[in-house]
């Protein structure tokens, strides 16, 4: 470990803090006039809160502390996410610590039988996993970490990655180097084929969304948004022109074969999110949402053909003894206006949609800790049903503190890890993945791709072995919906 890495990490952490626009000087003058009164009130509120806490403890009130899975320390650094890759405050632009996100496209070969799913007389079939992971044919790719992956409906695209684990506090003789080659794995034939290497610019801090016969790749790290398209049939990369003020963000799939590029936080009222129509190659801006300056964790999700925006309130608007639950709005594209939806009673935004239901599968919850306890445990996850605009947070259970494996729908899924359970959004059941043969866990920075319902994993590093060797092993866990 060296001081340079440590220093770069501290510098990167500073980027997590996103200031708003500086207030006008006149506003500072006004605030200054009222500052004394405000501070007195604030201090009084704090004293009262501490007194109330002490009284609660003395009174024998025992508060069960439940770890929030919102706490990133519980999250795998390599979680592969799907439709909400940009569900955070701006992530470090430090190329040494990119997030790894992988987008899963629905499997067109197993198109949802909506009629069958809607037939109340027909019991939904539960998803089931095979008993063990299946080792796949040797990859032509060198061992690597944090490669970008995407499911085309027929093949898993793997490209990029790094030579070493992305560990800002590890003592490397050399920094992790980006890898530029790529390969496609065909699960039906258990074969790999080399694909055109991506441009260097997309090698790190990017994620991919497959729409039709193209993968669209964008990510963090640059001063401006860079969007690339990989044509699967032509095996060719091309750069897409982007508006100058489009936010630097991961692409999020939106209804109508479009991509959303969103600001993770509203920094100023004039800030706009962008839509890219992959069919026409045109850009448009989204109307300003009802969530004003300071709202954060803004994430979009396509739900039943509509665009839903989730966000959380500015800290200044939330009393310390109340949870900051997820709020939502839905876009009326015809009228060009957002309509505010009821607030949730859960802490984390949905990131997967099954029909008209948006899901965050995370179990567990939080009670605000011992200092500013909320007086109740607030669930992390749950469901939002757009058809009747109701939230259904999950019940709290003690087993729910573990990091989750993801969520499976009728024909598509988002897998965020290989440990913890997977939520079946069709039946409401939860099922566990078997242990990977190489013992890799959620902290191995492997690439995880939902290949339809199957789980594909590639690469990563072995955290149990000195030197943290990286791997090019690939495994597949078969999943099906069978009666």
């Amino acid at each position, binding site marked *: 470990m060296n001081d340079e890495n440590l220093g770069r990490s501290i510098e990167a*952490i500073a980027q*997590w803090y996103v200031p708003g626009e*500086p207030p006008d000087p006149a506003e500072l003058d006004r605030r200054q006039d009222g500052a004394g009164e405000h501070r007195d009130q604030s201090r009084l509120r704090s004293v009262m809160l501490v007194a109330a806490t002490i009284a609660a403890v003395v009174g024998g009130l025992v508060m069960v502390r439940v770890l929030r899975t919102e706490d990133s320390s519980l999250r795998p650094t390599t979680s592969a996410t799907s439709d909400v*890759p940009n569900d955070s405050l701006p992530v470090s632009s430090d190329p040494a*610590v990119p997030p790894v996100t992988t987008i899963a496209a629905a499997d067109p070969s197993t198109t949802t039988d909506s009629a069958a799913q809607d037939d109340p007389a027909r019991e939904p079939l539960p998803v089931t996993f095979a008993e063990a992971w299946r080792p796949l044919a040797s990859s032509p790719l060198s061992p690597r970490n944090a490669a970008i992956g995407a499911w085309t409906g027929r093949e898993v695209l793997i490209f990029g990655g790094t030579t070493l684990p992305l*560990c800002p506090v590890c003592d490397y003789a050399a920094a992790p180097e980006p890898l530029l080659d790529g390969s496609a794995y065909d699960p039906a034939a258990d074969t790999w084929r080399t694909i055109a290497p991506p441009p260097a610019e997309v090698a790190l801090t990017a994620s991919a969304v497959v729409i039709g016969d193209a993968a669209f790749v964008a990510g963090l790290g640059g001063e401006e948004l860079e969007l690339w398209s990989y044509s699967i049939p032509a095996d060719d990369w091309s750069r897409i022109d982007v508006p100058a003020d489009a936010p630097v963000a991961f692409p999020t799939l939106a209804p109508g074969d479009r991509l959303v590029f969103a600001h993770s936080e509203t920094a100023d009222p004039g800030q706009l999110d962008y839509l890219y129509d992959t069919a026409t190659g045109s850009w448009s801006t989204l109307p300003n949402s009802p969530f004003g300056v300071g709202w954060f964790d803004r994430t979009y999700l396509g739900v039943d053909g509509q665009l839903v925006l989730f966000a959380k309130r500015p*800290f*200044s608007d939330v009393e*310390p003894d109340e949870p900051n639950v997820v709020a939502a709005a839905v876009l009326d594209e015809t009228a060009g206006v957002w309509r505010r939806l009821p607030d949730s009673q859960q802490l984390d935004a949905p990131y997967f949609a099954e029909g008209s239901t948006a899901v965050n599968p995370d179990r567990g919850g939080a009670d605000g800790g011992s200092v500013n306890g909320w007086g109740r445990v607030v669930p992390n996850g749950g469901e939002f049903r757009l058809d009747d605009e109701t939230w259904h947070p999950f019940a709290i259970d003690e087993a729910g503190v573990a990091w989750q494996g993801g969520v499976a729908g009728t024909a598509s899924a988002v897998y965020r890890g290989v440990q913890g359970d997977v939520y079946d959004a069709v039946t409401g059941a939860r099922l566990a993945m078997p242990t990977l043969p190489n013992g890799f866990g959620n902290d191995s920075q492997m690439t995880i791709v939902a290949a339809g319902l199957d789980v594909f994993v590639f690469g990563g590093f072995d955290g149990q072995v000195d030197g943290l060797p990286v791997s090019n092993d690939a495994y597949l866990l078969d999943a099906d919906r069978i009666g």
Partner: protein
Amino acid sequence: MSEVESAQWPDELVALYRGEYRSMVRLSASMLGSTAEAEEVVQDAVVGLRRRWGQIDAPKAYLRRSVVNGSVGVLRRRSTADQARMDPAPAQAPHELVELRDLLLRLPERQRAAVVLRFVAGLDDEQIGEDLGVRRSTVRSLVARALTTLRRELDGGVR
């Protein structure tokens, strides 16, 4: 900005304020763990700078020093309830960074300030010493002790 404001706030000060606002907030937030609190600190510091405007040779350094002092003041006044208002880490942040952030926010005030001035503001020992009112050797000691603490704690969880 309106004409009234222009008359009240010197253009040079307004330019400095607008130009340095975000970096100063990040500097303070790195010490406090809270963007909201940091914004208050910086705004207070700017108001203080305005009062002294014309009497100060190096306004930017003065502003930075005010921000550091204001941040330390917040830390000293901070109640346990305030501590819970710290910004959450980004949802996708690597857990090593989250752990490092938490450790950084547990460093003693002066060590924390020295490390933040070194790595967030990019200052050298001499500049840090001026801001903190200590000698260069003390700065080196503060930074070294802070980094040693961070490394030791991180070694417990990360190889």
